[in-house]
C-alpha cells in the first residue's frame, strides 16, 4: 500500500475521498499565525501523533519566522518605504520567501509521510490561512489494506 500511493496524483485519482478534517488556528498568542497541535481523533488510526505534531510544529515555526518583527524586517520595511515600495517589483518579501519554503516542506511531508498513509495535507495559504486541511483517502483498490482501516470503513459503510 505504501508504494501504491507514492505518486500523489495517483492518490487523488485512484483513491476516493473519505473525509476531510480541518486543523483550526490557535489564537492564544494573538493574531500571529499558529495552528492547534491537538491531535484529531479521525487520524488516530492513520498516523502516529508524534509525526503529526512534528509537522504542525514545524509549520508554526515557519510562520513565526515569516512574521517575526526584528532587525531584518525593520530593514526591509524601511528600505521598501524609501524606495516607495518599488523594490518589491524585483525582490520578494521575506514572507513570500518563507511561504515558498512552507510549500516545499508540505510537498515533501506529503510525499514521504502522509501519502503512504492515505492522507494529504493542503497548504494553509490555499485556505486563506484559516485551517490546515487534511484529506483522508480510502483505499479503494485493496480492501482493508491500509493500517487500522476499521474506523475508515466504518464511516463509509453508511
Amino acid at each position: 500500500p505504501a508504494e501504491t500511493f507514492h505518486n500523489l496524483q495517483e492518490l487523488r485519482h485512484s483513491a476516493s475521498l473519505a473525509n476531510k478534517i480541518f486543523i483550526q488556528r490557535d489564537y492564544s498568542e494573538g493574531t500571529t499565525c499558529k495552528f492547534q497541535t491537538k491531535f484529531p481523533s479521525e487520524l488516530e488510526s492513520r498516523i502516529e501523533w508524534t509525526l503529526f505534531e512534528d509537522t504542525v510544529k514545524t509549520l508554526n515555526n515557519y510562520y513565526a519566522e515569516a512574521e517575526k518583527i526584528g532587525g531584518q524586517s525593520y530593514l526591509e520595511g524601511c528600505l521598501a518605504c524609501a524606495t516607495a515600495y518599488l523594490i518589491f517589483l524585483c525582490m520578494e518579501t521575506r514572507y513570500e520567501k518563507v511561504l515558498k519554503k512552507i510549500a516545499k516542506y508540505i510537498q515533501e511531508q506529503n510525499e514521504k509521510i502522509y501519502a503512504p498513509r492515505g492522507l494529504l495535507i493542503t497548504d494553509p495559504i490555499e485556505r486563506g490561512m484559516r485551517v490546515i486541511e487534511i484529506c483522508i483517502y480510502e483505499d479503494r483498490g485493496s480492501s482493508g489494506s491500509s493500517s487500522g482501516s476499521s474506523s475508515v470503513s466504518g464511516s463509509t459503510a453508511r
Partner: protein
Amino acid sequence: MHLGVSESMRECEYSQISTRSSTPMETPYKKRTSRKRKWESFPGRSKFYCDGRIMMARQTGVFCLTLVLILVTSGLFFTFDCPFLALQLTTAIPVIGGVLFLFVLGTLLRTSFSDPGVLPRATPDEAADLERQIDVANGSTGYRPPPRTKEVVINGQTVKLKYCFTCKIFRPPRASHCSLCDNCVERFDHHCPWVGNCVGRRNYRFFYMFILSLSFLTIFIFAFVITHIILRSHRNGFLNALKDSPVVVCFFSVWSIVGLSGFHTYLISSNQTTNEDIKGSWSSKRGKDNYNPYSHGNIFTNCCSALCGPLPPSLIDRRGFIQSDTLQLAPPTNGITMYGATQSQQSHMCDQDQCIQSTKFVLQAATTPLLQQQTSEPVILTTSPENGGSLPGRTSLTLAGPCTSLPLGHPASQDSLHEDSVRGLVKLSSV
C-alpha cells in the same frame, strides 16, 4: 428503463420550472474555452480593475473627489505660487513640494488599490465541518441558531471570536466584517470612503503614510501660500494676492488632516485599531483588568511593528485562474455531494440559507438508497461535472444550495437557488 423514465421526467421539469435563459448543461462547455480568473467570481462587493490587479470598494466617488482636491490644490500651488517663491526665496521649495506631492499620490494609490487583508470565505467543506462542530456543541438544530461565539485567551485577556454568517468562518481576533465591501478584513481599522477602500492589515501603513505626508503637504502649501501672499501684499495689496491661491481649501483640510494624523499616531503607538478605539474594547473604563493584549509594551515597538513589520501577502489570489479540476467530493455520509471550487459564489441569504439547508437534509434522507443503484448520471443538475469521467462509482448529487458553488461565476439569485431545491424535491419524490 429507470434512466429513460428519469430523463423524460427531467425534460418535463425543465420546461415547467426553468426560468433561466441558458440551461446549466450549456454553460460548462461555453466556459471551458476561456479560463476565468478568481477575481471574476469574487463573492464580496469589491470592484476589480486592470484584470484583478487593482481592488477597491464599490463606491469610488469620494476617492475621485480626494484625488481632484489634491491635484487641484497642488496644481494651483505649483502654477501660481512656486514660480514666485522659487525666484524670491529658493528653488528648494518646489522641489520639496514636488517630492511631497509624489509621495502623497503614491501612498494614496497604494492604499486605495491594494487588498486590505480580505479573508477568503470558507470552502463548502470547511463550512460544513464548522456547522457540524457547532451543532454538536449546541445539541439543537433550530431554524435560526443562536449567535455563535468562541472565547479565546490572548495574553491573559479573554477575547470573543464571532462567527461570520456571510463568510462562514470564525473571525480571527481583530478582524471585522465590512458591510460596505461585504468582506471580512483582518485587523480591520475602518472603511475609508476618501480612499475608496477598507483600511486593514495590509494597507494600514500606506494609509498612515498617506495622511501623514498629506498633513506635511497641506501645512507646506499653506505656509508658503501665506508667505507668498505676504510678500506680494507688500507690493500689490492683500486682496489681490489672495485670489489665485488655494488658501481656503488648505485652511480647512489642514486641521482635519492633521487631526486625523494625530489620532492615528496615537492608535499606532498603543497598537489599537479605530474599530477597537471607538468601541472602547481596551479602555480601562470597562474594567480594572482591561488592557490591550496586542500591545508590545512600549511605543517604539508598537510603531515599528505597525509600520515596518512584515507585509503579509494577499490571501485572495485575485489573478489566479479558477481551477475547474479541484472538485472536492464529500461522501454521501456528509449529506449532499457538493462541488467546491476555490471561490464560491454566495449571494446574501439569511432565511433562504436556512430553508435551503433544511431542504438539503430532506434530499439527503430521500436519496441515500438511490445512490448505490445509479451511475454517475446526475439526478439534479445545476452544474455538471467538468470531468465527468473521473467520478468514482458514487452518484453525484448536486444541489444548488448556498454551499454549492457555481464555479463558473454565475451569481446565484436567491430565487433560482430556492427553485432548484424545490425542483430537486419534486424530482426525487417522483422517481
